């Protein structure tokens, strides 16, 4: 929609003002993320332009010191475990919820979704007391279980969304042709809901990988995750290594975003939904 030829000067003024404002807002959204990338190659430990020279010293520190590498390994280990657990639990629940005869759907759904509604500090304090009581405080198990409660709602939501457009006559046809329920699930249902499952599991991975508040409450220095190290890094004295870590994480989220977009397209194609 371009400014039409017969628009009044006032309308044209508004049109360009609107475009200018939108450009500024988009810049506001993206600039902070883009600014941090070049700064991570700065050869001096300051956060300003112009940079006196380029170097990889902050990446060296990120990839070679125990403090950051330990955190990265912990984060990946916890996030992968969370992803596995929450994908299994969440997919099962979504399959059950999608059946037309499921009883008390609305209240059950509210309970399952509640971990993403409750302010995360309350969750953090609540599980802190809980894991202190059962003697799991400062263990990987506590961190993984706590993150799983936070991550599973995303799996439930995404898989449910995939199942909403699910054609149940396909499973009935398979059953009618003599396939036992297990075969129906693995040959018909699973391939169709797989894109939703993968999207959900990526969300779950991202949730755990980025979570800091609950990690601050239930884990100790031994189970420190990447966000925890970044949090204390920003809080104490901000070292340029954080910008290197941030750049790595930005690349990581770009990859995730692309994967999810590709999966969404694939899923729409599989289910025969055509974009207009």
């Amino acid at each position, binding site marked *: *929609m371009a400014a039409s030829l017969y628009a009044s000067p006032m309308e044209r003024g508004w049109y360009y003002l*609107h475009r200018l404002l*939108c450009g500024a*807002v988009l810049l*506001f959204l*993206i600039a*902070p*993320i883009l*600014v*941090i990338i070049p*700064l991570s190659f700065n050869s001096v430990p300051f*956060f*300003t*332009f112009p940079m006196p020279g380029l170097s990889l010293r902050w990446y060296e520190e990120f990839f070679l010191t125990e403090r950051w590498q330990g955190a990265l390994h912990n984060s990946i280990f916890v996030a992968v475990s969370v992803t596995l657990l929450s994908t299994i*639990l*969440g997919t*099962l*629940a979504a399959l*059950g919820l999608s*059946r037309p*005869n*499921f*009883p008390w759907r609305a209240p*059950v*759904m509210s*309970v*399952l979704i*509640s*971990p993403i509604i*409750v*302010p*995360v*500090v*309350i969750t*953090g*304090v*609540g*599980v802190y*007391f*809980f894991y202190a009581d059962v003697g799991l405080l400062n263990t990987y198990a506590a961190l993984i279980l706590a993150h*799983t409660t936070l991550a*599973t709602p*995303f799996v*439930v*939501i995404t898989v*449910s969304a995939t199942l909403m457009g699910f054609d149940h006559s396909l499973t009935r046809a398979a059953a009618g042709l003599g396939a036992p329920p297990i075969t129906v699930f693995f040959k018909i249902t699973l391939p169709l809901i797989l894109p939703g499952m993968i*999207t959900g599991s990526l969300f779950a991975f*991202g949730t755990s*990988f980025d979570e*800091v*508040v609950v990690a601050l*409450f239930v884990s100790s220095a031994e189970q420190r995750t990447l*966000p925890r190290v970044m*949090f204390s890094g*920003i809080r104490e004295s*901000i070292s340029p290594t954080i910008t290197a870590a*941030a750049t790595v994480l930005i690349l990581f*989220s770009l990859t995730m*975003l692309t994967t999810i977009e590709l999966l*969404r397209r694939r899923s729409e194609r599989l289910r025969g939904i055509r974009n207009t």
Partner: protein
Amino acid sequence: MATMAVQIAGSVDGVPLRIKLQRIERARKLKTFAFVLPLLLFILIGFVLPIGRMMFNAVHDDGLLVLMPRTMAALNGWDGKDLPDETVYAALAGDLKLSFAQKTAGAIGKRMNYELPGALSEVISSTRKASTLSVGPYKAALIEITPLWGQHEVWSLLKRGASAYTAFYLLRAVDYQYGPDGQIVASPPENAIFRDVFLRTIGISIGVTATTLLLGFPLAYFLATLPRRSSNLLMIMVVLPLWTSLLVRTTAWVVLLQQHGVINDTLMALHVISQPAELIYNRVGTIVAMTHIQLPLTLLPIYSVMKTVSPSYVRAARSLGAGPFYAFWKVYFPLTLPGIAAGCLLTFILCLGYYITPALVGGPADQMVSSLVAYYTSEELNWGMASALGVVLLTATLLLYYVFNKLVGVERIKMG
């Protein structure tokens, strides 16, 4: 035909078909429920139960009951008018001796200190002195040790401690407390800090919600009117921040807004300002960083509603003689209201619970309720207070979420 078939089928083994169908239906329901059960149990045990227990802590406090059992039992007979009689003091002396031996004086003193600032040191010193008392009468001797035990206020505090349930923490969370005679009074100014924090939390949340709406609405309109290809491209710029780690975005703002950060240095190089502006560790930094984080979340619901508004409505209004602004305001804008309500409510709800961002880019005067909950949990170790503040925050969040659910429906939350 149908009824006949039912009768014939039902007569084979004597069980009516209706009952059989009901049985099958029930078995199916159980089977589908079995799919959901593992997650439901997991969430109930690992999430709902811990939070419920924490909420319970806000009204349940048996500290004094456990630490001073004899005094609490003796106080049951006290009418609450004058100072208690000798039997109560004897029980108190017994409890104090015991607490000196078991080193629990600090815990008693700390609990009393919540309601009576300054009681902690008095209690600790009096347990030490009371341990030397061997014979009565205890009343005069204890008041001799410290006048604390001769104050009516102290005894009405202890009397309240005889019950395991207390409204003290919840009252404190809204800046009320028990007066000397057990009546509820407004907290003195030095204790009345919580209402300020709640108002500040609401104020910051409203500010951020309004800013995201002001910035997000024009952009959403722009994206909704663009052709699909270019709007998809620009949409990446909206969604990428949403996908970037919260800590990365906060780090970016710290780097940008610092005293010698990118923005200050650029402005100084351009001679716009001569001194670095105070952009971080204050309200400005908090609002800017929070707006950046919430903007996509306000924008996306508005955008998806705008996509459904047919351009022919505005065209019809224009052809009927409405000016461009009148047509926009009277026709287009009302149609986008559901999206605005959804986006703003979502942002407002999420803002209420912010913790990390104010902690990293805000100053001491920008901390919100969540920070206080964390502070009372891990620094002060006053778990009753942490829980009471949590109750207020959680209640507000759940109420707003209920409204959101009625308005939008949780089923319609979309990801990505």
